[in-house]
C-alpha cells in the first residue's frame, strides 16, 4: 500500500503539507511538514528599540497582526510598568474584537466551509449560495474596516503605540460600527443554525487537553494573566515555558509543544470548552443549544466554535462602544525606557499567543514568542493519525481531503509558527 500525501495544504495561511507514512496497512507516522522558511523574528528583534520591536513582530502574521502587536505592547508596558487610560484599554479591546471578526469570518466562510460542499473555494459557491457569500464578504469587510480605523490600515497598522494610539477615533466613526454590528449579528446567527446541520465527520475522535487565557472577573473574553487547563489547573502566564515545553522537529520550521508530555489544543474550541458557559446573550443561547460532549473529542467543531465567537463579538462591540464614547481622549504616555523583563499573553483567534521580552540599556536583548500553531501542531498530527487509521481501514476514497479538513479546522497560521497533509505509504 502506498503512502498518502497532501503536498500543499490549501486554504490555510502559509506553506505546509501532510505526510502519512503507512507500513503493512498500519499508520506508522504522521508528519505535518512546515516548508515556510525560517524568519527567526525572535533573533532579529534583539538589539532593536521597543518601538522598532512592535513594528517588526506585528509582521509575523498578517491575519493576526493585531494580536501580535497588542501582546507585544502589553508585554513591554508590563516590563516598563506603564498604565494606560481606560479609553486606550477599551479601544485596544475593540481592535482585538475587530481582528476576531476578520479572522474568523475569513476562516469559517472562505477556508473551512467550502469542504462541506465539496467545492475548491468560497468563490465557487457563488452560483449556488450567492447571498451567503455576499454576507460573508460584507462581514469580513466590517472586520477589516474596523481594524483600519483603529490600527491605521487593514494589515500592519502603526497606529497602536506603546502608551496609547497615534490617533483616537471619533465617536461618530465608532457609532457606524455599533449600528452595523446589530444588523450583521442576525446573519451570523442564521448561519450558525445552518452550520449546525452540516455533517460533522466522526473519524477523528480522541481525547485531548485544552488551554486558554482566563479572562478577568469571570467574563468571557480573549486575554488574561493566567492560563486555564482542562486538567483543572491554572498557572500565571509567566509559567508559559512549563505549559509549552517548546522543541524543534526536523520536518518543520515551526516548533512544537507538549504539556504533561501530551499534545494539547488551543483556539476557539478550547475557549468554548473551558469558558463557553461565561458567554452571554444570543451567543450563550447558541452555545447552550449546540454544545455537547462530542465537541471535546473532535476538532472539526472548531469551525462552529468560531462562528459562535463571531456572534459574541457582534454583541460585544456595541456594548463596548457605548463604554468608550463618554471617556476622555488620552495622549500617548511616553515613559522612560528602563531595564525590565515581562511576559504577556492574549488569545489570538487561533489560540494563546505569548510574548516575552527582556529590555536592557534601551534595547530588546531577548525575545521569546510562542504562537498558537506551534502549540497545537502535535495535536493536529495525533488527530490525523487517528483519522488515517480509520479511513484506511474503510478504504475511503476521500482520505486525503478528509485529513486536510482536520488540519484546516485548526485554522493553522503557518507564517506565525515558523518558528500541513502528506500520506507516504511504503
Amino acid at each position, binding site marked *: 500500500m502506498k503512502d498518502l500525501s497532501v503536498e500543499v495544504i490549501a486554504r490555510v495561511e502559509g506553506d505546509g503539507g501532510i505526510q502519512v507514512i503507512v507500513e503493512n496497512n498500519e499508520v506508522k507516522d504522521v508528519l505535518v511538514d512546515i516548508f515556510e*522558511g*525560517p524568519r527567526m*523574528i525572535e533573533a532579529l528583534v534583539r538589539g532593536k528599540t521597543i518601538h522598532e520591536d512592535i513594528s517588526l513582530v506585528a509582521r509575523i502574521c*498578517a491575519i493576526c497582526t493585531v494580536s501580535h502587536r497588542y501582546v507585544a505592547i502589553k508585554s513591554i508596558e508590563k516590563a516598563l510598568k506603564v498604565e494606560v487610560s481606560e479609553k486606550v484599554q477599551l479601544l485596544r479591546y475593540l481592535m482585538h474584537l475587530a481582528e476576531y471578526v476578520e479572522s474568523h469570518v475569513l476562516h469559517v466562510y472562505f477556508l473551512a466551509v467550502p469542504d462541506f460542499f465539496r467545492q475548491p473555494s468560497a468563490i465557487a459557491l457563488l452560483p449556488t449560495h450567492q447571498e451567503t457569500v455576499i454576507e460573508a*464578504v460584507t462581514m469580513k469587510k466590517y472586520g477589516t474596516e474596523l481594524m483600519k480605523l483603529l490600527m*491605521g490600515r487593514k*494589515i500592519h497598522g502603526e*497606529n497602536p503605540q506603546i502608551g496609547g494610539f497615534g*490617533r483616537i477615533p471619533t465617536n461618530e466613526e465608532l457609532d457606524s460600527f455599533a449600528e452595523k454590528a446589530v444588523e450583521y449579528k442576525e446573519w451570523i446567527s442564521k448561519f450558525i443554525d445552518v452550520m449546525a446541520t452540516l455533517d460533522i465527520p466522526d473519524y477523528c475522535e480522541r481525547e485531548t487537553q485544552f488551554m486558554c487565557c482566563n479572562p478577568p472577573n469571570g467574563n468571557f473574553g480573549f486575554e488574561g494573566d493566567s492560563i486555564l487547563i482542562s486538567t483543572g489547573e491554572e498557572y500565571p502566564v509567566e509559567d508559559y515555558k512549563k505549559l509549552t515545553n517548546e522543541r524543534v522537529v526536523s520536518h518543520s520550521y515551526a516548533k512544537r509543544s507538549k504539556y504533561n508530555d501530551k499534545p494539547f489544543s488551543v483556539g476557539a474550541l478550547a475557549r468554548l470548552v473551558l469558558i463557553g458557559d461565561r458567554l452571554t446573550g444570543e451567543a450563550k443561547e447558541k452555545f447552550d443549544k449546540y454544545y455537547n460532549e462530542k465537541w471535546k473529542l473532535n476538532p472539526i467543531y472548531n469551525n462552529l466554535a468560531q462562528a459562535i465567537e463571531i456572534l459574541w463579538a457582534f454583541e460585544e462591540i456595541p456594548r463596548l462602544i457605548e463604554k468608550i464614547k463618554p471617556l476622555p481622549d488620552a495622549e500617548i504616555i511616553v515613559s522612560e525606557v528602563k531595564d525590565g523583563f515581562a511576559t504577556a499573553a492574549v488569545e489570538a483567534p487561533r489560540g494563546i499567543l505569548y510574548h516575552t521580552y527582556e529590555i536592557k540599556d534601551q534595547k530588546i536583548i531577548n525575545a521569546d514568542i510562542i504562537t498558537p500553531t506551534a502549540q497545537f501542531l502535535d495535536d493536529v498530527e495525533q488527530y490525523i493519525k487517528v483519522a488515517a487509521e480509520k479511513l484506511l481501514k474503510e478504504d475511503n476514497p476521500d482520505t486525503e481531503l478528509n485529513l486536510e479538513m482536520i488540519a484546516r479546522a485548526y485554522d493553522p497560521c503557518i*507564517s506565525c509558527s515558523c518558528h500541513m497533509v502528506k500520506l507516504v505509504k511504503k
Partner: protein
Amino acid sequence: MWQREKKPIVGVFGFSGCAGDQLAILHMEDELIDFFTSADIKFFHMAQSHQEVDHVDVALVEGSINTTRQLKELKEIREKADVFVALGTCATHGGIQFLGENEKEFKERMEYVYGNDGKVPKFMDLVGDPLAARPLSDYIEVDFVVPGCPIAKENLVPIYTKLISGLKPVKYPYSVCLECKYQGNDCFLLHGKYCLGPITAAGCDARCPSLNVPCVGCFGPFEAANYESMIDKLKEIGLTEEDAKRKIMMFGGSASEKALGGMKK
C-alpha cells in the same frame, strides 16, 4: 453578459513572509469577486484548493526566499510565467528577515531560535535547507514590483488591471514624503522627530504620518532614495549613525544594504 473569449491565466504564489500580500488581495472585499472572475485564477492556495499549473500569463509572488526548496519552486514559477510580479517588501527587498550575504548573523539567528545547546538540527530534505533570506530579484528576473508591507490596493489594482488587459504598468518613481505633502501633514523631521518618509517608496498615501505616527519605511526604499542626506538629517536631530542605519535596514533589504555598504562611513 459580454465575456472575453479567453481570460488571462493568473497564479498567486507565496514564499516566506506573513502572507500579508495575499491577504491584502482577500481584504479588497469590494473588488474580490471581480478579482476572481476577471482572470482565470489557476493557483492561489491560500484561497482555493491546489491546482497544477504548467503556464501562467501573470504570476503574483510574495515573500522572500529562505530555503533551498523555495529557491527551486521560485525558478519553476519564473519558467512558467510570462510576466512575473513581485508583491510586497519581502519579495522586492527581502523584508524584515533580510540577511543577504550575512552568513554570520544567519548562523547566530538559527542557533538562537532553533539551537539546542548551540546545535541546530538538520532539517529534512522535504522542507529544504535553510538559507539567509533574500529578495526574489537576487535569483530571478522580476518584471514588475508592487511595493508595500503589505501592498496597498491603490498600487495593486492599477498594475493588475493593466497586466490582465495586456498593457504595461507605470512605476511610482517618488517617495512617501511627496504623498505626505499632498495630505497637508506637518513634517516630523522639521520638528526634530525621526521619519523615513523621504527615502521610502510611495503608494500608501502617507498613511502613518497622517495618523501622527512616523514612517517606519515599510514599503522599502524608492529608486532615487538619497541615503546620505537622510542619514545626515537623522544625525542632526540626535540619532547616531548606527541608529539611523538600523532603522533604514528594518525594511531596506538588499537595496539599502548595497547603498549603505557603498557609502563612506
